[in-house]
């Protein structure tokens, strides 16, 4: 098995997804199944191949570095789960 229960717990923590303990073994099996299938990539000779980091070969278009919009807190806050005045209310970060 590529991914064991301990790895699932670690990755779930990194991904910030609460994973109930009773689901960990099942998820480990599913993810291992996927990773085992992905393993076939090791057959491909990629020596000296440059990784492809962009889907197109054109240079990035440039634009002037100027502010084009902004300054509207009401719009930014319009979907907030909790707010107070012109601020988002979030859980305490610093004890």
């Amino acid at each position: 098995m590529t991914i064991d229960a301990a790895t699932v717990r670690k990755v779930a923590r990194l991904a910030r997804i609460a994973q109930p303990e009773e689901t960990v073994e099942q998820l480990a099996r599913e993810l291992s199944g996927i990773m085992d299938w992905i393993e076939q990539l090791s057959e491909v000779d990629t020596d000296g191949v440059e990784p492809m980091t962009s889907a197109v070969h054109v240079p990035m278009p440039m634009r002037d570095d100027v502010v084009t919009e902004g300054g509207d807190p009401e719009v930014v806050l319009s979907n907030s789960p909790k707010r107070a005045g012109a601020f988002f209310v979030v859980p305490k970060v610093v004890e």
Partner: protein
Amino acid sequence: MSELTSLTLKAALDGLAAKSFSSVELTQAHIEAVEAARALNAYVLETPEKALEMAKASDARRAAGSVRPLEGAPLGIKDLFCTEGVRSTAGSKIIGDFKPAYESTVTSNLWRDGAVMLGKLNMDEFAMGSSNETSAWGPVVNPWRTTGGNAQLTPGGSSGGSASAVAAELCLGATATDTGGSIRQPASFTGTVGIKPTYGRCSRWGIVAFASSLDQAGPMARSVEDTAILLSSMAGHDPKDSTSLPVETPDFASFVGKSVKGLRIGVPKEYRVDGMPAEIDALWEQGIAWLKDAGCEIVEVSLPHTKYALPAYYIVAPAEASSNLARYDGMRYGLRVDGANLTETYERSRAAGFGAEVKRRIMIGTYVLSAGYYDAYYLKALKVRRRIADDFDQAFEKVDALLTPTAPSAAFQLGDKSDDPVAMYLNDIFTVTVNLAGLPGMSVPAGLDASGLPLGLQLIGRALDEGTLFSLGGALEKAANFRAKPQKWW
């Protein structure tokens, strides 16, 4: 006025121009069709009042002599596109009742050109799925059924709502997106036309991100010409998306009907996979014969890394998704489930808001990007991606376009593959290569299988050569003369 919904987009635009009917009449007919088809679950939000308001404004513009390219045409919008003031969920609970304060560039372009919005279309959650079963809104049902059967079939995914709505005549055309086949596979499953343009043709601004180096918007409609008309409106450089290409958008419809004589068509031998139904192989042969009859030269080509495209995709796409979806933390918008501290609030919100497939992909993406695995998985996949793109570059030295089947099967029953992630992923075996290489790909309905379900053929072109695809798609459409429609049961 139900016959108004059976028109192609082109015929509807002609009818509007001839004043045979108004946009309000056309829109009202569609609103009624949408209401009567709720059993398909294609729309997750109907916006009839907005539609009629837009239709009235369109009729007023026409009366004043100002007519735009899509004037008065009612369309459906995939729920991945942000629409100002209109709930946009990406098929996920985590976004909740999010009402964007802005409009995506692609939909802005459609409204600029006079189109009318009927509502938002169902989809797999965050566009992750091939059967529409991962949607928080429940699966979309395919209007097609097997001859004499009544089992509920998938319309494919992730643009299942778009496909179903187009096939069932609940809009004249729809927006869709394609990250690994999400336009083309549903088009094949529903007897509709869909094109994923070259990466960068359409702006991704305002489209909820899944895998940014692969995501691309495109249209679905009931004819090749209709998709060409829609794509000309949707496409174009956008300063808000630096990956949108600074190139002119051609009048794509002008390519439909052009002669394809002398074009060289590649047939990649690696697409003859084990276990492919004989009917799909036969349809492919038929497609080759049609293009030969139209004057094309058929050339066998090799794309040796084809079999590695899906595994490479299932590293690249989840890696990008795990990064893109990190923004759903319950702080500024969407679902928040309170915990004892900040981390627990994040963990609970994301556990409650994401569905099983999205969680799987975030986990895979986080794993392959985590310390110690990055080189072995992520970097390796990017190198394999380069080899896949190189395969296409070499093939396009010899040919002008490629012809393949779109999907390895016809539409399957809802529930059939939902227990086996890898079996579900294999749906995209013929489509995903195109996303990795950034190329345009189109699915055209070509025939029915023995059980009466539609099957599509895929055309793949050079980067920015959608024009050739529209000419070839038009030739295939003419030869196939695909006229079948789903029997109305809904």
